[in-house]
C-alpha cells in the first residue's frame, strides 16, 4: 500500500479526465484563436509561445498532483508570506510599464507576483477557515482577522497600482466567505460600508486614468465614445461576427488592427468576430462546465480545506471570465483582467494552471490512496 510506484498508479487512475478534457478544449481554442489573430501582428508567432506556456502549465498540474495538498495546507501561511514578500520586492525593485509597477524582471521572464497572490489567498483562506471552528454563520467580528490577512496582500497590489487584480482577489475571498456561511445582517452592513466608501475610493484611491475609464464606461451609449476606442472597436468586432462568425482569419476588425491588445485582454474579440454567437456559446459552455466541475470536485473533497480550495478556484475562474467578457463587450470599464486559457501571456496561464493543479490534487485525494 505504501509502495511509491503503487501510489503513483493509484494517483494516475484518479486523474479527472473530464477536467483535463475541458482544459485541453479551452487551451486549444486559445492557441487556435491566437494563431488566427496573429496575422494582424506582422507574423509574430504568439500562438507557438502560448502553446509552450500551455505545455509548461500541464507539467505544473502534473507536478502539483504528486504533492499531497495537505502539505500545501500545512505550508499555507509560508506560501502566503512568500507571495506578500515578492509583492514587497516588486514595490522596491519592480519593473515599471505603462505607469504601474507590477513585474519582477527574472531576465527571461517578467514575473507578476500579484498573480501568485490569487493562488496564495485561496490557500491561506481555506486553511484559516479549516482551522477555525464556528457554530452557524459567520458574524462580522469573526471576519476581521481573515480580512486583515487578505488585505495585507491586497494593499501592495493596490499600490502598484492594479485595481483589477485587487478586485479579483477580494472577489475570491468574498466567494470563500460566502461559502463558509455568513449572516445576512453582516452582508448588509458590508454592502453599506462598501457603498459609503465609493466616493472616498473615487477621490483618493483612483488614479486619473482609472477615473477616465469609469467615466468612459458610464458614457458607453453616447455617440461620442471619448476614451473607449478600444471598447468600441471590440464591440463592433463581436457584433459583426453575427451568428456564425466571419470564419478563421477573416475577422476584419482584428486583422486590420482595429482592436488594441487583441492578443491579451481582448483575445475573445477575435473569437467572437470569427466564430460569432455560436462560437461564444461554445466558449461559455466550456467555461461553465469547468466551473461546475470545480464545484463538483469541491463537494466531493475529503475535508473542508479541499472544499474551500475548490470553491476558491471556481471563484478565481468565474471572476476572471465575467470581468473580462463584461469588459470587452462594454459592460464594465477596462481593468486589464485576462480571459483564462484564452488570453496570451505566461503569467496568466501559469496562474490558472496552478489553480487547476490544486483542484486536480483535491480531486485525486478525495479518499485515501488505496486501491479499491
Amino acid at each position, binding site marked *: 500500500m505504501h509502495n511509491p510506484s503503487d501510489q503513483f498508479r493509484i494517483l494516475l487512475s484518479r486523474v479527472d479526465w473530464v477536467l483535463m478534457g475541458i482544459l485541453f478544449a479551452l487551451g486549444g481554442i486559445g492557441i487556435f484563436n491566437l494563431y488566427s489573430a496573429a496575422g494582424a501582428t*506582422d507574423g509574430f508567432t504568439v500562438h507557438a509561445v502560448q502553446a509552450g506556456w500551455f505545455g509548461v502549465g500541464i507539467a505544473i498540474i502534473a507536478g502539483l498532483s504528486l504533492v499531497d495538498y495537505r502539505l500545501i495546507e500545512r505550508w499555507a501561511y509560508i506560501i502566503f508570506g512568500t507571495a506578500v514578500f515578492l509583492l514587497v520586492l516588486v514595490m522596491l525593485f519592480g519593473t515599471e510599464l505603462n505607469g504601474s509597477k507590477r513585474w519582477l524582471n527574472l531576465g527571461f521572464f517578467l514575473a507578476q507576483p500579484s498573480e501568485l497572490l490569487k493562488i496564495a489567498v485561496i490557500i491561506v483562506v481555506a486553511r484559516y477557515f479549516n482551522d477555525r471552528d464556528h457554530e452557524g454563520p459567520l458574524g462580522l467580528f469573526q471576519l476581521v482577522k481573515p480580512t486583515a490577512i487578505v488585505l495585507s496582500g491586497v494593499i501592495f497590489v493596490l499600490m502598484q497600482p492594479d485595481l483589477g487584480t485587487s478586485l479579483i482577489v477580494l472577489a475570491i475571498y468574498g466567494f470563500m466567505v460566502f*461559502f463558509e456561511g455568513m449572516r445576512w445582517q453582516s452582508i448588509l452592513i458590508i454592502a453599506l460600508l462598501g457603498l459609503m466608501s465609493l466616493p472616498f475610493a473615487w477621490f483618493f484611491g483612483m488614479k486619473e486614468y482609472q477615473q477616465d475609464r469609469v467615466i468612459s464606461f458610464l458614457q458607453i451609449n453616447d455617440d461620442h465614445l471619448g476614451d473607449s476606442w478600444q471598447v468600441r472597436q471590440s464591440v463592433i468586432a*463581436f*457584433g459583426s*461576427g453575427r451568428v456564425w462568425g466571419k470564419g478563421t482569419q477573416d475577422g476584419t476588425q482584428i486583422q486590420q488592427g482595429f482592436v488594441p491588445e487583441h492578443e491579451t485582454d481582448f483575445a475573445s474579440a477575435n473569437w467572437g468576430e470569427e466564430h460569432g454567437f455560436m462560437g461564444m456559446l461554445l466558449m461559455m459552455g466550456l467555461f461553465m462546465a469547468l466551473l461546475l466541475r470545480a464545484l463538483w470536485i469541491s463537494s466531493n473533497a*475529503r475535508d473542508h480545506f479541499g472544499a474551500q480550495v475548490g470553491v476558491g478556484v*471556481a471563484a478565481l475562474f*468565474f471572476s476572471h471570465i*465575467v470581468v473580462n467578457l463584461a469588459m470587452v*463587450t462594454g459592460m464594465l470599464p477596462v481593468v486589464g483582467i485576462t480571459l483564462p486559457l484564452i488570453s496570451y501571456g505566461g503569467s496568466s496561464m501559469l496562474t490558472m494552471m496552478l489553480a487547476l493543479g490544486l483542484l486536480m490534487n483535491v480531486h485525486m485525494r478525495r479518499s485515501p490512496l488505496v486501491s479499491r
Partner: protein
Amino acid sequence: MTNRHSTHSAGRREKRAGGGRYLWLVAIFIVAFLCIIARFWYLQVVRGDEYWRASSNNIIRDIDLRAPRGNIIDRNGHVMAENRPSFDVFVVPHIFNKHDSAQTLELLQRYLHLSDHEVNTIKKRVQSKVAQVPVRRDVTRRAVAALEADRLRLPGVEVRVIPHRVYPYNHVGAHALGYMAEVSTDDLQRLSPYGYTRGDYIGRMGLERSFEEVLRGSPGIDRQVVDVRGIPQGEAETQFLIGDYRKITPVPGRDVVTTLDAGLMETIDQAVRDYPSGAVVALDPRDGSILALYSKPGINPNSWTGRLSSMEKRRVDNSPFTPMLDKTVNAYFPGSVYKIVGAAAALEEGVEGVHDEITCHGGYMLGGRRFRCWKRGGHGPVDVAGALQHSCDVYFYSIADKLGTDVLAEYAYKFGFGEESGISLNSESPGRVPTKEWHRTHSPHGYQHGFSLNAVLGQGNTMSTPLQVALAYGAIANGGDLYYPRIVSEIRNSEGETLFEYPPKIRRALGLKDSTLAAIKDGLYKVVNEKGGTAFALKPDNLEISGKSGTAQVHAIGSVRVANRDKAFQLRDHAWFVAYAPSKDPEIVVAVFLQHAGGGSSEAAPVAIDVIKAYFEEKERLASPQLSASPAPASAGDLD
C-alpha cells in the same frame, strides 16, 4: 471506508454539509453567464447585421500627413532651400492584393513607364505587411491625370502630394546647406521613437542635418474609413466606426534664417571657376557671422534629394577632388597665412620689438642645416611688418628658433587653431597644432628643435581649416576678439514669428598688446598696398584691402626646385589668400584656399580680392537704389 476516513484525518475538521451553498454558487454562476450571453445575443444576433455592415468592406486607413519642412533663408531673405509639391505614387497592399494585381501592375507600368525590375520590386514588397509601397516619386502632371482618369481600374494605387525639397542655388553652398535622403534601415532603428517611418526623408550634411529637429515638423495622421477599392466612405459610416479619432494636423517645420549671403556665394562660385578644388570662407569680423561657406567641387543637392541617378552617384564617387568633403572645415597645411601666429608670439614674448630688424640672406642655419627662404637672394633687413609684407621666411625662422614649439603652439591656440571652432557642421576637423608632446608621441625620432621652424611657416605638422584661418584673421581685423562662427541668426515658425535667436558670441579675447596688433595689421596692409608686398600687383583703386598670401608645400622640396606646373597635381602647392577690407574698419574677411593650385599670391589672391570687390560693389548698388531700382515709380508697397 467512512470509518477509515475518519480515523485517517483524526483531529481534522470534517466537511460540513454545504449542499445549499453549492446551489447558491451555481445559481450565481448561471445568472452571471446568462447576463453575458444576453449581451452577446444583443450584439451578435439582434444588432449583428448593423455591426457587420459597419465593419465589413470598411478598412481604416491612416494616411500620414507629412509636415512641410522649414525653409533655409539667407541674410537677405533669399530662400536657399524650400519645398515644392511632388506627386508621389504609392500602392496600398491590403487593397491592391484583393483585386487583380497583375492587371493593376500592368496598367501602372504603362502609365509610369516602369522598368521590369521596378515592377518586380513592387511585386515583392506588396507581399509584406506594410502600409504602403512607394512606386515612384515626383511623377509628371500628365501621368497623374492619366492615373486619376483610370482610377477604377487601379484599386490600391494612390497619388499623394508630398512636399519635395528644392535648392534654388543648385550646387552653390551645397555643403553648407546639405541635402535630403530617405532614412536608412540603421537610422530607423535609432529614430523610430522620434516618429520617423520608412520613406521619410532626413537631412544629410550641412544645415539640413545639423538643424534636422528644427526644420522637420511633426507629421500628422488623417484617419479615414475606405472601402475595398480605397474610396473614402461617407460621414455616417465614418462616425459610426471611428467616432472622433479623425485627424492629427501636422506641425510644419521651422525656418532657419542663416547669416549666409547667397549672392556672395554665387560671386565666389564665379571667382573660382578656373580651379577644380578648394574652399572659400567669408565672414563678418565684427560679429563672426559667416557670409559664405563655399567648398568645391560641390554636388547638386537637387539631384541628390530623391531619386539619385546612378550616373550622378558614380560621378561624385569617382571624382579625385572629393566632392562630398566640406573643405571649409577640413584641415590642410596653412602655409604662410599662419605667420600671424609667429608674429604675435614674437612681439608679445618680447623676442623682437615692433621695429627690430632681422637681416635675411636667403637662409637660416640651425644645427648644421640650412633652412631656406622662398626668395633665394634674401630680403635684406626686415622688421615684423616687412616680414609679413614680403612673407620673409628667415625672420620667422629666427623667432621660432628663439620661441620654441610650445610657445608657438600656445599662441596658435589663442587664435583658435588646433580646436574645433564650434560651427557644428559637417564634422568639423579640429586641425592640428604640433607641440613637443605631440612630436614625442607621433614623430619617428621624437621631438627636434627644428620642427618649430617648420611649424611657424604653417608647414611640417601644422594643419588648419579655412574656417579657422578666416576666424583668426577676423580676430586681428576687429581688434582682438575671436568670435564663434555664427551661421544661423534665428529660427522662425511657419508664420514668420521669431522663436529663437542666436546672438553673436565672443569665444575669447586674444589679449594682445595694441602695439602688437597694430604691427601685424600694418604688415597685412603692406602686403596689398606697398611696393614689394606679395599681392601689391592686385591693389584695387578705390578700396584698401589687407591680406596675407600663403603657398603651402604639400611635398618636401628635394635638392632641385621643380616648377609647380611640372609636378603631379597631388604634389602641387596649396594656394592661400586671406584678406579683409576695408583695412581701417573691416567688414568682411575672405579666406581663399585653392587645393594644389600653386602660388598664393598668383592664384588665390586674385580670387579673394575679386570677391571683396564684388561684395562692396553689391553693397554700393543696394545703398543707391536710384541706380539699381527699376524705373517704375515708387509706390506705397515699395516702402514695406
